[in-house]
Structure formats: C-alpha cells, structure tokens
C-alpha cells in the first residue's frame, strides 16, 4: 500500500468539466481544487446548476458519455491518481472504497430487484462473498439503517420515500467505503425523516471514520454535519474554509447573499436580503468575475479581471477582487 498524507486523503486539483449542448459548450466545472482529510466532511454548497453534482460525478468518473465534452484535472485518492487509471481499476474502487448516495431514492433503485439483492450485489462483486453471505450481510446492513430484516425481500415500491433513501444509504455503506459522496441525500424527504437520515449518516461517520463529501443547498444541514465548506458558484469554488470561518466570517458577497436569503428559524428578520438576479448561463459565462453581474460590490475591475482563489488565514480561501484589495 502506498503511503500518503492523511490530510490529503482525497485531493482534487484543477478539475474542469465541459458538456456539449447542441452547438454550445457548457462550462460546468471550472478549475475546482480541494483537499479532504481522512474522516472529515466537506460540504459543497451552491444553487441549482452551480456544478456540484458534476464535481461528484467527475471524481467517480460517472459523467454521461454522450454529453461530456471534456474532463481534465487530477483526482488523487489515497495517494493514487484515479483520474487516469483503467476503467476496470476504477470499477474496483467505486462501490468498495468510494461510494455515492444519489439525490432521488425513487430513481436510484432498481424496481425489479428486491432490496436485499440490491444491497448484496455490491458485496458479492467487491468482497467476493457468496450469495448466502451477501444476503446475510445485506440484512444486517438493513437493520443498521433501521429497516427490519422481515422486509428484506420486498421491492422498492413497497417502501416509503424515507425508507428508500435508507436502502440507498445501506447500499452505499455496505462495503464500508472510506469515502462517501452524498448528493442532496435528504432533499426529497420530510424534516422529521431528514433528521433520522442525518443522524444515521453522522453515526456511521463516527463509527467507521468515513470521509464524506456532502452536496447540498441547505446551509443548516452543512452546519450540522460538515467540518469544512466550499461554496460553489458557476462551476468555481468562490469561498472555502472550516465551519467557523465561513459561518462567522463569510467574505464573498455571494456567500453573504446565501445567508441573507434564508429565513433563519431562530431569528426574526423583517425582510430577506437575497442576491438579485440569476446565476449565469454556463455556456456564456460573463467576463471577469462570474458573480460580478449580480454583485452589489462590483467595480470596473470586477467586470474585466477574473479573480484567483486567494488565501486569507487558516484554511479560509476566497475568490473576490474587493476582498483582495481589503487585504492589501
């Protein structure tokens, strides 16, 4: 086994993904870099279309073939470059060492297979279990996520939304992955069920020391489950840091806008102060800073020069010309 720096359990460098859409080129991910330490959780936050899911799919190399135009950059997992290894090698990592929970449990499950068979599938393929062993382990996994073993031979349509999502989580965790990528795992669920699922993910994280990338638009969920946060806008990381740095001292005007837009359950605010306008069309990104057309602080320079991600202090990074100037 290769040795690697545990603070760089997963290291993504300069990830770029473009899609083709008719004649247009869609710039979905633009130079994303981040490190994830062993056992820690990173929240990827941003609005619909910001490129969060594409980042996850690019790491796992499950981007759709027909529409992907290019995918470049480096993804180093436990010291090994996995962006260029053979497909067969990658298949061994996927599901065994890195697994993913998809947003919509209704479509992530095979409607023609019983839930126990779907969970056992990964165990049989990756861990060489026999059918009986796989079944036994799968039932244990179902019980871990709070579903009684009696229901193992039922089909997905016999389960409620919250239970289906638990089945998906059981599938993702069956092989004890070291890295879990969860894409909006609770968005389709009601709050009390969401609380159960988040609790479950947190428990498993502690028990198995799983590292996690949590993709969400909900800053409350990030606050409760993540150690670090990366705010994604138009396919770029615009601000990154640990929870305290981002929640107590947000620097980027977009991050401010995100916080201003949520009605906080614990505070009375007369009027919300959201960012005006809409995210840019990723096939026609604006010149200069991608956020400048919506930014209340934008100056001439912001419309012409594209800012770099600069280091502030600690683990806090920001991509903003105005913040850059303040520092000087």
């Amino acid at each position, binding site marked *: 086994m290769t040795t690697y720096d545990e603070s760089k359990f997963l290291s993504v460098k300069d990830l770029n993904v473009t899609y083709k859409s008719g004649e247009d080129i869609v710039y979905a991910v633009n130079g994303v870099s981040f490190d994830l330490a062993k056992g820690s959780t990173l929240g990827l936050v941003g609005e619909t279309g910001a490129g969060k899911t594409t980042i996850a799919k690019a790491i796992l190399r499950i981007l759709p073939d027909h529409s992907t135009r290019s995918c470049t950059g480096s993804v180093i997992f436990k010291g090994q470059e996995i962006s260029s290894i053979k497909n067969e090698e990658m298949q061994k990592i996927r599901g065994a060492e890195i697994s993913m929970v998809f947003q919509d449990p209704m479509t992530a499950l095979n409607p023609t297979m019983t839930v126990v068979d779907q969970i056992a599938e990964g165990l049989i393929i990756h861990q060489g279990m026999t059918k009986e062993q796989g079944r036994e382990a799968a039932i244990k996994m179902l019980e871990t996520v709070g579903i009684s073993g009696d229901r193992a031979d039922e089909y997905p349509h016999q389960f409620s939304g919250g239970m289906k999502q638990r089945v998906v989580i059981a599938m993702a965790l069956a092989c004890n992955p070291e890295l879990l990528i969860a894409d909006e795992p609770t968005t389709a669920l009601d709050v009390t069920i969401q609380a159960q699922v988040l609790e479950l993910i947190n428990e498993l994280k502690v028990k198995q020391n799983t590292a996690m990338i949590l993709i969400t638009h909900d800053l*409350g969920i990030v606050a*409760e489950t993540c150690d670090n946060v990366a705010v994604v806008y138009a396919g770029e990381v615009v601000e990154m840091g640990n929870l305290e740095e981002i929640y107590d001292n947000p620097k980027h005007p977009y991050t401010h806008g995100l916080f201003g837009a949520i009605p906080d*359950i*614990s505070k009375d605010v007369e009027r919300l102060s*959201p960012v005006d306008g809409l995210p840019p069309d990723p096939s026609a990104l604006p010149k200069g800073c991608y956020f400048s057309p919506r930014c209340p602080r934008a100056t001439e320079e912001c419309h012409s020069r594209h800012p770099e991600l600069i280091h502030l202090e600690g683990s806090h990074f920001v991509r903003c010309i105005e913040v850059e100037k303040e520092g000087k």
Partner: protein
Amino acid sequence: MSELLRVEHLKKYFPTPRGTVHAVDDITFTIEKGKTMGLVGESGCGKSTLGRTVIHLQDSTDGKIFLDGKDITKVDKNELKAVREKMQIIFQDPYSSLNPRMTLRDTIKEPLELSGRFNKEQLEDETTRLMDLVGIEKRFHYSYPHELDGGRRQRVGIARAIALHPEFVVCDEPVSALDVSIQAQILNLLMDLQDQEQLTYIFVTHDLSVVRHISDTICVMYLGQMVETCPTDELFKNPLHPYTKALLSAIPSVDIHNRSKRIQLKGEITSAIDPKPGCRFAQRCPYAKEDCYRDLTLTEVRPGHFVSCAYVKEINNL
C-alpha cells in the same frame, strides 16, 4: 381587525378502494383581514387539500366556510364565479401550472379578459400594470413559459392570482421548487403585495423557517388533524404539542454555536385511510398512553393557543 375567513369543522374525505382517506378531518380556524395564516405539516398531512377545499377547488365533505361573514359552503355555478374572483390560489409548481402555448402577456391577460370588466384599451393597460407589479421585465412579455426560470414563472402565477384584486389567496408551497436566493425574492414580493393590496393569505408549506418569516398565525397539521394553532411568535417560543416540538427541533439551524437538542421521532407517518379514533400522532409520540386513542378535541391551553393533546398539561408542566 375584522375576520375575513372562518372555517368550521371542515372535513374532506376521499373514497379509495382501500378505504376512506380522511385528508382533512374536523378543522376549525379563522383568519383576520390582511393577515397570513401558515399551514404546516409533512407530506400527506392534508395541508394542500385543506387550502384547495377552502377556495372550492373541490367540494367539502362536511363543515362550513364563511367569507366576510357570508356562508359560501354550498354555492351554485354563478355564485361560484363571484367567489372565485375573491379567492385565488398560487400553485406549487410553476413548471406545470402555466399553459406552455401561451405567451406570458396572454397568460396574465386571460383572467382579466374573462372577468369582462375591461374594454380593449384598459385590458392592455391593466396587463402591463400587473406585469410591472410582479416584476416581469418588458423583454419577457412575449416569451413562453419554457423560456423562463422558475422564479419568473412563479411571478406569472402570482400575477394571475392577484389580477382581479382577490381578498384572499391560498399560496400552496409557492417557493418550494425554487432555489434559496430566488425563494427569498418571491417571498419579498408576496409580502409587498400583501401590504399594497390588503391581501389575506393561507400559506401552505413544509418549510418552518419560511412560515415563521411570513405568517402571523400558524396551524400545524398531522394526518388530517390540526394538532396546534396559535400566533407565530408563541408557536416558536412555546411549542406545546409533542409533534410540533419534534418538528421544530428537526430543522437544521445555521447557528453553529448553539446546538439545540434534537427530538428524534421513531417511525414514519402512518396513513389517513380509515384512521383509528383519537390522536393520530400517538403511534410515534414518546408520551403516548392508552387514553390517547380516545376522542380528542382542540383545547385552549393558553390565551389564543390551542392544542390537541390529552397530556399537554403534564408534558409541559402547565
């Protein structure tokens, strides 16, 4: 302040092959003019059905509805048209509630035309006024719904709903399909319109932070029944029903320094098909005892604060 809407013992049952769904079961409330009542609960609790039944999108099974003191529970076709002008709805999904073959301008003009109140010139002026009011830019007047983002589509839905100056609007999860920053823009618009047009809202949502922001009073529903209702501040300060407490504690907060303890509920929402008598939350309730399966009414526990729970006093040391 005067009372605009009063609903008494409203019921809406749906017959199904597996039994009768008690979607709305004996709900009573009043809303004052110009105020907003938030209707919250999880999927399938009957909150949308209640909103739709109140404005006569479907007939009620039992109970009474009064608008401005007038009984509108049973109305004939002609009366219904008059009632509809006063009561409108904004739908959840701005993607499916607009006609894909009509331009925005025609979509917004349609209710004005049907009202027969305007001549040709007034019609155009009024349409333009409405589009300005909800903030749809000139360049989109002749666009079709598929060319727009969800936020702008929802603005069209809002313009249609308020076109004929209704007194009362049911907002059925109007921001649930939108991203946070767009959601905030639409919430601000709804609150501005309420001030300008003296509108009264029922705001149906599953999002408690949104409901806290926009409502004056709140009704919490669970499987067709009302479990708690009171002014908004009171509900967030002193939730008394065990379900409300669990619901509030389940919301992830952005406050990273004050983590409140979460009440974990066991199990999932059961079904409202031929429910057993008594409290429907009892199966998941940490305090449930045998008495909970007997009939139960909403009682005023504190002034203006109604709770439907047999053990509310014991649980809250009142």
